[in-house]
């Protein structure tokens, strides 16, 4: 799909990361479970307690010997997925994180931890837990970058008994800083067979190749005619009018220069040839087969230099 995406990328307002559109899509996850019927990977046990106390420098005798209890602040540790990962995570939580990743909020940092301890955990206790996504904040700009605070609440149980609650807040953010500038857009591959097409685009004209012998129009540009094999050709200038013949919405894989999701259209020009490009002027999820569109020329100036690309705008009142 990289070559398709290279035809234009996405500039639709609705597809840009961090707009209210994203906040609204994140809000949907509030109240949804993040982990269901999770089980601690190990029962509460003395070796893990001892390792914890060694690391923390905690010599409290309550955590040692035959009547040892676990340090209360280990509550979350018993629920951790470790290197082998979480098995109880729901699709909702992963979906939400993917949305944030795709919007450029790829970094994560824990900001708050609020725990309540209802009774001490003892070696042998089998810990079970359920986690709910309590809230997702509006977009916030912090010293680290811009992103969203996600708060989860985990109820920790041993058997039916609630032994503790654990509220956890993370900031999922796009790191700030100049090094985060998106890479330049990929450039079209220009060769002797299609150079005239790109020269015309730079002058904001859309040219269609025409066979000099049989008169059949063709796109993309080729050395010879598919209909009659003739190598001679000339061009006609397209009116730029067309309709969406087909389309795809790119969600994954993310391409560094573009912010998914975005729509890539197959446009059928009034002259009859088809062309892959972007459909602009409507959110990615409003693109439909049959929408009337008209070419417009989009100018970019990034680290790769100046670039003009043909894109197709949905006619007013048609979306």
């Amino acid at each position: 799909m990289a070559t398709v995406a290279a035809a234009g990328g996405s500039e639709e307002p609705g597809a840009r990361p961090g707009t209210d559109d994203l906040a609204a899509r994140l809000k949907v996850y509030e109240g949804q479970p993040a982990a269901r019927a999770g089980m601690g990977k190990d029962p509460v046990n003395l070796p893990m307690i001892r390792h914890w106390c060694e690391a923390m420098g905690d010599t409290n005798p309550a955590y040692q010997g035959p009547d040892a209890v676990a340090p209360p602040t280990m509550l979350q540790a018993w629920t951790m997925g470790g290197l082998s990962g979480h098995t109880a995570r729901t699709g909702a939580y992963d979906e939400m994180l993917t949305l944030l990743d795709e919007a450029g909020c790829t970094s994560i940092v824990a900001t708050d931890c609020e725990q309540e301890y209802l009774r001490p955990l003892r070696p042998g206790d089998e810990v079970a837990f359920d986690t709910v996504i309590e809230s997702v904040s509006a977009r916030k700009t912090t010293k680290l970058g811009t992103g969203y605070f996600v708060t989860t609440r985990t109820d920790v149980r041993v058997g039916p008994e609630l032994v503790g609650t654990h509220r956890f807040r993370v900031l999922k953010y796009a790191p700030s800083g100049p090094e985060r500038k998106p890479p330049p857009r990929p450039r079209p591959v220009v060769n002797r067979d299609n150079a005239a097409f790109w020269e015309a685009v730079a002058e904001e004209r859309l040219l269609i190749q025409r066979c000099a012998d049989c008169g059949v129009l063709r796109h993309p540009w080729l050395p010879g005619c598919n209909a009659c094999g003739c190598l001679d050709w000339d061009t006609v200038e397209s009116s730029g009018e067309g309709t969406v013949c087909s389309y795809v919405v790119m969600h994954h894989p993310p391409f560094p220069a573009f912010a998914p999701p975005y729509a890539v259209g197959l446009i059928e020009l009034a002259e009859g040839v088809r062309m892959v490009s972007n459909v602009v002027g409507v959110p990615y999820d409003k693109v439909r087969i049959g929408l009337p569109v008209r070419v417009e020329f989009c100018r970019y100036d990034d680290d790769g230099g100046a670039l003009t690309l043909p894109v197709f705008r949905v006619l007013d009142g048609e979306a």
Partner: protein
Amino acid sequence: MGAETTRPGVGTELPALEIPITRTLIVAGAIASRDYQDVHHDAELARDKGSPDIFMNILTTNGLVGRYITDCFGPTAQLRKAAIRLGAPNYPGDTMVLTGRIEEMDDETRTATVRVVGANSIGNHVTGTVTVVLTESTEDRGTVTVTVADEVDS
């Protein structure tokens, strides 16, 4: 720091606890809490993510705050709640100084609400509130805070 002879009450300041933030502490704390995020043990990957070095994870901070409270009030003190917020990261080579003050005291249940701050050279790494029940035997010790003071001095 001298011996504390009065019963802890509102306004009582807990003796400070100085914690050298070593690379070993950060990594050991992360692994003991089963947190394998690379930013807590791999300096190269941490730098790739825009951090100058590895930094302490929140579970270790929480563990240290818990330790600070039970160090001060003794092994029979029962933690009820711990609510912490992170600020300036704990990077290797820094020192965090934990201080605390009793903000509220319910004399009937002997429940203290302690405001805790952990400051490093950048700013406040952690601010939070811990609710702890001081059991009879805790108070029988009478001089609970001496233990910590001795430890800090050593």
